[in-house]
Every structure is written in C-alpha cells, then in structure tokens.
C-alpha cells in the first residue's frame, strides 16, 4: 500500500436482498485498491439474502477490522429508506448519510403485522441526528438511466460527489467500466452520473 496519510473511513451499506449492495461495496473496495488505500470489505451471503436485509461494509485506511460497530460508521449508504433508518444506530453525530428515498415494503407490513413508518419522519430524524443527509429518489433516477437495477450506481455517484471518499470520478468510472457487465455499462454509467448530479444539487 502506497498511501501514507492516516486515513480511516468506515462505510456501512444496507439494503434489501437483490438491490445490488454487494456489487456496490465490491466496487468501492476495487476503487480503494486502485487508489492505493488499504481496504477491507465484509459481505452478507447465504440465507439472509432471500428478501431480507443485506448489510455490507467497506473499511478504508489503517484499520484491520472488516466490520463496523454500532455508532462508528462515518458514511451510511442506504438503498431503501426503512433500512437506512434502521441503520441509524451505526451512525455518529458527524456521519454522512446517503439514502434512497424509495420504499420496499417488507412482508411483515404486507401481512399487517406492522406498519411502514412515514418516510418524511424517517428523513427528518436522519437529518436531525447525523452530520449530513443526502436523500434522493434513486429508484426513479435508475429508471431514467435505463435500468431499474442501477440503484447502486446512483448511490455510488452520490457518494463520490460528496467529497468524503478519496477517489476521483475518473477512477470510479474506470472501475465501473472494467468490473460491471458490458450489457449494463451504459445504463450504469448514466445512473452513476445522475446520482452525482442529484447529490451535487443537494449539496
């Protein structure tokens, strides 16, 4: 590892199985490695992936642990607003939260066991208790980009434009270009740039 500055950055990703969180963390890991940073990524596999919550982490810099304890995430990247809110316990007062405002109704709500909290209230609480909140409708932006599956690219675009991760747009577009399937490349890059622009407009 070539970087000498004393960077430590803990990024916590959460979403619902099938939303592409694992690809997002892997790309972040690849970008970190390409930029010369030590990096650890932890993933969820197996039973938990079947429609449940999928959490993964990217830990950059001089840290050996691949996972992130409660209250210690510097960045929370949420792919679904309820799951972002559930992971508020990973955040501290200076955390950056980037979240999709899109809703994915859990079946406990569908069968009437519980009710889905109001999105506006969850956003207000996220804003009040963390350092900074970027909330964007990543589902719609992904569809605009040409692939409903590109929610992860929208959120990565927003993350890069936040200035809180030490990679350039060029590094990251190169990673997307070389590490994602060619068939989805155009839509992925469009989604990435739509996410960047949306976050820049919020900043």
């Amino acid at each position, binding site marked *: 590892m070539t970087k000498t500055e004393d960077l430590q950055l803990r990024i916590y990703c959460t979403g619902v199985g099938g939303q592409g969180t694992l690809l997002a963390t892997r790309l972040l890991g690849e970008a970190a490695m390409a930029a010369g940073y030590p*990096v650890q990524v932890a993933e969820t596999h*197996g039973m938990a992936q*079947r*429609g449940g919550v999928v959490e993964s982490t990217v830990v950059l810099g001089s840290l050996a642990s691949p996972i992130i304890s409660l209250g210690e995430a510097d960045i929370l990247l949420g792919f679904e607003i*309820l799951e972002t809110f559930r992971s508020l*316990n990973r955040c501290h007062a200076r955390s950056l939260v980037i979240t999709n405002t899109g809703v994915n109704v859990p*079946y406990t709500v*569908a069968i009437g066991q519980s009710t889905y909290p109001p999105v506006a209230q969850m956003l207000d609480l996220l804003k009040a208790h963390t350092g900074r909140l970027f909330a964007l409708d990543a589902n719609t932006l992904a569809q605009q980009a040409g692939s409903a599956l590109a929610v992860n690219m929208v959120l990565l675009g927003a993350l890069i434009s936040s200035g809180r991760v030490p990679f350039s747009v060029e590094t990251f577009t190169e990673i997307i270009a070389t590490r994602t399937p060619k068939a989805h490349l155009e839509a992925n890059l469009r989604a990435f740039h739509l996410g960047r622009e949306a976050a820049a407009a919020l900043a």
Partner: protein
Amino acid sequence: MHPLLAGQPGEKRLLLGNEAIVRGALEAGVAVATQYPGTPSSEIGDRFYQISRETDLYFEYSTNEKVALEVAAGAAASGLRVLCAMKHVGVNVAADTLMTLAYSGVRGGLVLVSADDPSLFSSQNEQDNRYYAKLSGLPMLEPASPQEAKELTSYAFQLSEELALPVILRTTTRINHSRGVVVLGELKPRVRQGHFAKNPFRYVMVPAVARQAHSILLDQQAKAAAVAETCGLNTVQGRGPWGIVSSGVSAAYVTDAIADLGIGDRVSLLKLGFTHPLPVGLIRDFLSSVEKVLVVEELEPYLEESVRAIAAGLQQPPPIQGKGPRLFSRLFEYHPGLVRQVVATYFGVPYTPPTPLDPAALLGRPLPERPPNLCPGCSHRATYYAVKIALRDLGVEGIFPTDIGCYTLGLLPPLSMADYLLCMGSSVSTAAGIAMATDQKVIAFIGDSTFFHSGIPGLIDAVHNRHNFLLIILDNGTTAMTGHQPHPGVTPPPPGYGGQTIDIFQVVQALGVEQVKLVNPLQYRLTLAAIKEAVAADGVRVIISRSPCVLYLQRLGQKKRAKTFVVGPECRDCRHCLDYFGCPALQPPLEGEGPLTIDETLCNACGFCLQLCEKKAIRAKSTKGS
C-alpha cells in the same frame, strides 16, 4: 481465463477470503477439490468448479461432506494434493471419516477447510470446530485476513505432506466473506496423475493396524507441536507488560483496539495462526514476559483453557482472563467496538464507548422487521399453500418436521410450516419418531439436495420399520440456498455439466415406498388433490413436488417473463392470499383498504396467485406485442 488463474506474482487483487483460499491452493498445485456446499464455505467449491471447467483440476460437488472427505482421502492416499471444504456442521457429517483419516494419514497434502459461523448467519448452531483439531489430533491453522487465508492454505499443503497428516484450515464467516487486498504468488503446476501404492498395514484400519496408527499419530502430533514453535505463524508483536493472546479475525479487532486506545507501547500481542497443537514453549515464554493476560477469541474458550493449563506450570503465573462477566461472551461473533471496550476495561484504560442512536426510540415505535423470505414465484410456497388448504379442508392439524434449505423459511408466518428441525436429513427420521410416539398427522418436508445428502437412510428406515408419515420432497432441481450448485438430481443441469442425473422418483420407488406421487406444485388443483389423498392415507407416503427454482432458471437464461398479472376490482380485501400464501409481490395498499397490487418488479410470473384467488380477481395481462 478464470480470474484466479490469471495474474503475475506480486500483483494485488481484492479477493474474498474464500477466493483467497482457492488461490492459495492453486499456488500449492492442488489437483483435486471436493465440497458439499454450505454457507460460509460455498464460494470455495464454486470457484473450483469454474476452474475445473477450463483445466485438468478435478472438482466435484459431492453428495455430502462425508463423501467429499472420503473422495479427498482416496485421492490424497494416491499422492495428489487435495482440498476439501465444508461448513462447520458439515464436519459433523464427515467426522467419522476424519477421526480415522487422522490415523491413516495422507501421502498427498490434504487440507480440510472448516468454515465456522459465529452468530449463526446461516446455520443451525455456532459450534466451535477448533475442538475437532483437538479431538482428531490434527494440525490446525487459522487465518486472520484474506491474505493470510491464501498464505496459510498454501502452507497447509506443505505441512500436510511433511507430517503425512490432513491439516485443518479453520475459518469463520468474517474471513470467508470478507474481501481484502491479496498479493498473488506463483501458480505451481499440478500433479494430476496419482498412484495408489498398496500398503494395507497402513491403510486398512482394523484394530491391530489402528493401535499402531494411533501411536504414530501421537508421534506426528509431537512433530507438529515442534513446527508450531518455529513456523513463524505464531508471532509476538510489541513488548509491553499487558499480554493479549488472540487468533483469527479477533486478532484484527485487537490490532485496531490497540491503535485506537493508543496503548501500543504497553501491550504484547501473541497472535496465533497455528492453533493446534499450540506452541507451548512460545506461550510459556510469553506468559513469563507479561503482567496480566487477556485472551480474545470468538466462541469457546479454546485458547484460554490451554493458556491457563500452560500457566499452571509456571512459578508465578500472570492472571489470565477471557470469557466472563464484563469480559467476553461465548456467544456470537465479536466486533471492533466490543473488543476495544473489553481491552480498555481489563487493562484499566480510560475509554468512553460511543452511545449508539436507537432508531425505534426516536421513532417512538418498533421498526417493521424484514426477515428473509421465500422469493416471489418460489415453488415451495405453492406446495406449502396446498398443504395448508388440504389440512384446513380435512380439519386436521399437521406436525411439520422440516429440513435445511430455502424452504426452512416456511417457518415464518403466514406459512408457519415448520415444527421441528435439527440438521441435514433430520426431517425424515424425526418424523418417524414423532409419528411413532403420538397419534398426530406428521408431514415432513425435505429438499432435493438434502434428500440426497442424508435423507435416504431415514426413508429406508421408515419403510423397513413400517413408520407412518407423509414426506414431501420439495424438488426444485438445484441446491438453491447456497447458490444453485448441482446435486445428483440436478434438473436442468447447467450447460456442459458432466454429472449423471439420478431421478428422485425412481430412487424413492427403489427404496420400497409404495405410495409415491409426483406433482407440479404450480398446478394447484392437482397438487391439492394429491396431498389430500396422501394426508388421509396411512404408512410411508412420499410426494415429490417438482418445479425448478425460479432464480435458477433465470440464472440459466431459461426463464422469460411471458406474462404479467393484474388485480381487478373483484379483490375485496379478503386477505386470503396474504394470510395463506404471502408472496412478496402481492402488496396491500400502504394505508387503508382496497384491492391489492402486484409489484411487477418483484413478480416472477409463476401464475399461482391466479389459481388460488377465491374471488377470481387476479388475471394475466399479456405483455406488449404478444
């Protein structure tokens, strides 16, 4: 070329721990690999399977872990280098083999990967398999990062051949499923042609041979202990008076805790990578050099017990703690904040842990849970629905022994189709036990891969001993839960797959089951009729409920979404489909009453809801152009 076969020595790759294990084996010239898939070990076999398609490396998805280890043992006895991977509970299945394989030893290097699962992310228990090393007497290595996973795997082959013993590489989920930067080494050519040199007085474990073999094992263990002292995998970092002993991913948490607390000048860390036999001399010297000791290890006090025993031989042993109140738990995996806090508490370092926010408290009510669920379009849900309706119509309560696979998710409401589960294959024989002990209707569920794995002996027992239950084999053609690995009944086989397919129906008939029926669960009426008839009958009945996994078909590119479905105004909010079926694509309005909607992004177009809707409110809608 497969990515794990590419790359120059010195190149850096971001590898999953499991991929690093595969790369390490390739760098050691592994020729054969075997596995029964199981989280968190599955990607090891999957990568070997891919690699076997383009090289002469032999890989098989074995029927179960015992078979996997025996195929591996035969190949290693013939002089080849072999890796055999399984999840922690898989070692229980292979344990009979393992214990005696330790006596007979190996010629070619044999590495057994035991992937443990602290916190039970995807398992039925969180047993600590380090005790298998102690029980069998075999050497054990424990990596603390993906880089170490690669290095220790390579080294394990060398060690295995030096000692002529299998070597256990013990990992945990956080190693298997973490990605880290791994520096590649050189790939070693494979020796793929073995030769079995006859030596029955080594390899045929009759008592007279085994008595000698046990003695040889103890000699080899002593050699292994000497290697553990000097191999360089057990290291002391720092020279402070506070001693910490750790291994595996816990050692990573300790490293961060020392840096976070700024106590590097006060700590000595004994980081163990070779954890059976332990380096007694090294540990004794370490204990003599420190004032007090904290042992940091997930699950059982495996290291702590040994360190205490070694300390008992010292004149002035330092205080040693690990598990206990305000210290570490024997439950679940650890994390950086926990280890930092316990280290601070034990050594009296001022430290204020963060106070995490509580989202439910901020919101003023609990958050909706999001447990894992069967996929939209899953044929298991259709089978469960038919059983629920059959029992409702017959006015009978069913007791449901179940088994291990996606269908275990039928436990949760609204399906609630699981009453008893122990381990792979247990559904069949526990059903026999419950039915024998009670007068209740017992309906057991087992998946196709699990049936081949360990369901067959139970079914033979049931026929032979004239037990009385209905067994439903949920046959979706693949090992779905762990990532769609082929099994002996794989249908359809992945393109180019060379394995011969064995038909479950014929197997069940051949076992002597007289009442056996094959149904397609997506044909609701026929399935319901077959289940009602089988529930009402006596004796051993088997229904094979066969419909390929919808995700598997999509992955093979064989599932084209031909139709979408819409809910018409006839939907009167009766909630029957939600209360009995619970497909995630069927969504009630978020607030108030009204017709359901079908989420087209989730729907996999199985067409089952159309058959079950008692109001006939769900209709197929043709897609554009058709």
